[in-house]
């Protein structure tokens, strides 16, 4: 084995390539720019396309057009860009367009601090669309996750025909780290299921036992319709309440019902612990350091690292938290994902540690909360 020195954003680029990404468009923004730089280096020489849009709206628009033409597309930005993506994200959700969207979070609100990390977009990624339908959000802890979860993100986008977010953080994306590329546990590459020629093509039609429509690319021998309007299975506008309700229920269910199939997590179980720390992203690393340091002491804690944040892996959280008296949630915001825990774990003591000052939460801060419970 040999180690490779790589930035998180670079690993996202290589992960995308390994997943079969052949289209990228983005608009430069710190701390996401190096993803664009990487894709510009990797894609065009391999026959792929990497474009710089005139703004974020154009960048994701290019991706949606390309994705509907059969390409595997990715875009990357930070909070200000996600804000501009919002309307296009709603489109991708409602019209089932596979796309990977990387949000390298920086300290907000607004333009905030370009070079400071945060996890301030965690609720925004789920709810920053009109209509309130679910999305998939994966959160990398380190450079290895940047590579591996990006591959999963592409696979899930293909499989479920939906936008999949990678909720990165400046502290993961712009940190250079060693990674053992040969030791990675990489998933098989998944391609979207295409419609067979045996029956007429319905752009949004699903067979009885399926939740995701078969795909055909724009430009093929059979005509394809895509629309941002409320549509029936045929891709034409509908006002029929029955059809509309069925479509909304399917879009809601196709992700929520299947979340156990893509619940990524890690855990560190400490015998004798009565506290469970739950963390995600870069904060999970401080939490791991804290939990390990306290293994020999009087107050011990176990750790659950969530890598699938949305749809909320409710079953996993309930199951993992059950044996513990208390849960400690640490995140780089003033209390976002902890709301999900409060909702899922009524009656359990939940202590929260949040920070929004441009700095990472330190292991010592987490230790302190574990100790004083």
């Amino acid at each position, binding site marked *: *084995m*040999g*180690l*490779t*020195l790589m930035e998180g954003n*670079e690993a996202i680029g*290589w992960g995308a390539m390994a997943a079969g990404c052949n*289209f990228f468009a983005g608009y430069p923004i710190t701390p996401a720019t190096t993803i664009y730089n990487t894709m510009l280096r*990797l894609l*065009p*020489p*391999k026959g792929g*396309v990497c*474009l710089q*849009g*005139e703004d974020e*709206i*154009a960048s994701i*628009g290019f991706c*949606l*057009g*390309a994705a*509907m*033409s059969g*390409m595997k*597309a990715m875009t990357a930005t930070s909070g200000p860009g996600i804000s501009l993506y919002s*309307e*296009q994200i709603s*489109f991708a959700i409602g019209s089932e367009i596979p796309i990977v969207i990387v949000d390298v979070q920086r300290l907000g609100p607004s333009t905030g601090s370009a070079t400071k990390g945060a996890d301030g977009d965690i609720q925004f990624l789920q709810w920053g669309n009109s209509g309130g339908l679910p999305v998939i959000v994966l959160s990398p802890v380190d450079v290895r996750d940047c590579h591996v979860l990006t591959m999963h993100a592409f696979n899930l986008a293909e499989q479920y025909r939906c936008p999949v977010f990678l909720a990165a953080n400046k*502290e993961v994306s*712009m*940190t*250079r*780290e*060693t990674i053992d*590329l*040969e030791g990675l546990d990489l998933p098989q590459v998944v391609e979207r299921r295409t419609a067979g020629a045996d029956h007429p093509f319905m752009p949004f039609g699903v067979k009885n036992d399926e939740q995701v429509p078969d795909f055909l*690319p*724009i*430009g*093929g021998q*059979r*005509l*394809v*319709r*895509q*629309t*941002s309007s409320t549509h029936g299975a045929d*891709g*034409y*506008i509908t006002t029929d309440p029955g059809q509309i309700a069925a479509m909304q229920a399917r879009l809601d269910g196709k992700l929520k019902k299947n979340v156990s199939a893509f619940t990524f997590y890690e855990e560190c179980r400490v015998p004798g612990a009565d506290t469970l720390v739950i963390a995600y992203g*870069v904060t999970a*690393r*401080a939490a*791991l*350091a804290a939990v*390990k340091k306290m293994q020999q002491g009087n107050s011990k804690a176990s750790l659950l690292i969530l890598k699938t944040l949305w749809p909320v892996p409710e079953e996993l959280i309930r199951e993992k938290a059950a044996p513990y008296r208390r849960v400690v949630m640490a995140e780089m915001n003033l209390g976002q994902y902890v709301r999900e825990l409060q909702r899922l774990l009524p009656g359990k003591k939940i202590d929260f540690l949040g920070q929004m000052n441009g700095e*990472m939460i*330190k*292991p010592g801060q987490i230790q302190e909360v574990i100790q004083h419970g």
Partner: protein
Amino acid sequence: MDSLLNTSRPPVFCPGCSHEQVLHSLDQALTGMGLCGEEVVIVSDIGCSGLFDTFFNTHAFHGLHGRALTYATGIKMARPDLKVIVTMGDGGLGIGGAHVLSTCRRNIDLTLLVLNNFNYGMTGGQCSATTPQDAVVGSGFLNRLEKPLDICQVAGAAGAGYVSRISTYDKGLVEGLKDAIAFDGFSLVDVWGICPGRYTRRNKLSPKSIEADLAKLPELGDYKTRNARAEYGRAYRQEAATLQPAAEPVRIEATCTPPAPGRWEVVVLGSAGQRIITAGELLCLAGASAGCHAAQKSDYPITVMRGHSVSEIILSDTGIEYTGIENPSVVIALAPEGVNRRKKMLAGLSPEAWVIKASGIELPSCPASVIQVDFKSGKIKPQDWALVALAVLAGMNRVLTMDMLKAAMKLRFRKTEYEAAIAMVEKAAALQLLQL
């Protein structure tokens, strides 16, 4: 082929709407060019022009307001063989202005039909980017305050190779559309027409007056000649074909032995131009060459040629969990800009820590051991101070060894750079800078 229109979905425009005439003209243009539905994509915007895609038996993409050109660009880059037609109203033109300008500049092979009826028909006849100042529209007095946009002049100035304006009622419309669609690059046709549902309820507009108004406008420049150049997609593919695939990520074999086990935190404090980030990278590579895990974070202002430059490095023989600096083993202090950024950290250093500092740098009082290096008297240029400081550290056999540093330099630098770096390290050694 007679028609690409969808017979099961006849047009539903208001009686007398110019859009319906354009619809038939577009159909005649496409069929007249011998195109079949599978070869054509209609990308439509929001508003009444956004209904276009539903009336055709072609590929169809209907998206958000003003963004039609963005999808069309993605589609055309993915499928250069398709004829991509974008329909947009004067509303889409206004809200999507940045995309119109950029598409003109790009010269990608799309055809944009601006179905210009001088108001927002669908929402109640409000003013758009092309509403005349003397028109009576649903926006009260507001349109009287804004000058209407002549999109053709703008598009030409922005680099569109094909720009034309024409009345819906012009007998040459079908030929005009064919011409635009056949153009190898971005073509924009500004098609003027009547919105009977909203606009002509309160404003006088007729085929004749449109013709007269068009005739009054200044001539368009010869953009075909002035803006002639290669189509974007083709030029893109030509450029891309000359590129070499990026090299695979380098895997660093562990060929050296680290001086001691454990976790080592090093902070390099300097200023722009001192190659602080490169020094941090060298340290990480040195670690990896001894099988250690490494992490590096950097901090510098957006004005990259001025101000502080700070690099924080962790080397560890076990996996690195927390990537923040908690207890630095070594601080390299080379410029006041960097030192000022980490005063608190310097004051809190442990007695076991070492500071390597350039002479003249003032530090807050701290219990760490301090080594002073007189780079200036050694005639070492500021951009080499960080490298020499690493050599000093290697000379002390702390964090890294000289073998590790050399292995890192070999990985990081090209041959001539490497030789210069080795010479620099040797020069520093000869000057006895590396001695304690």
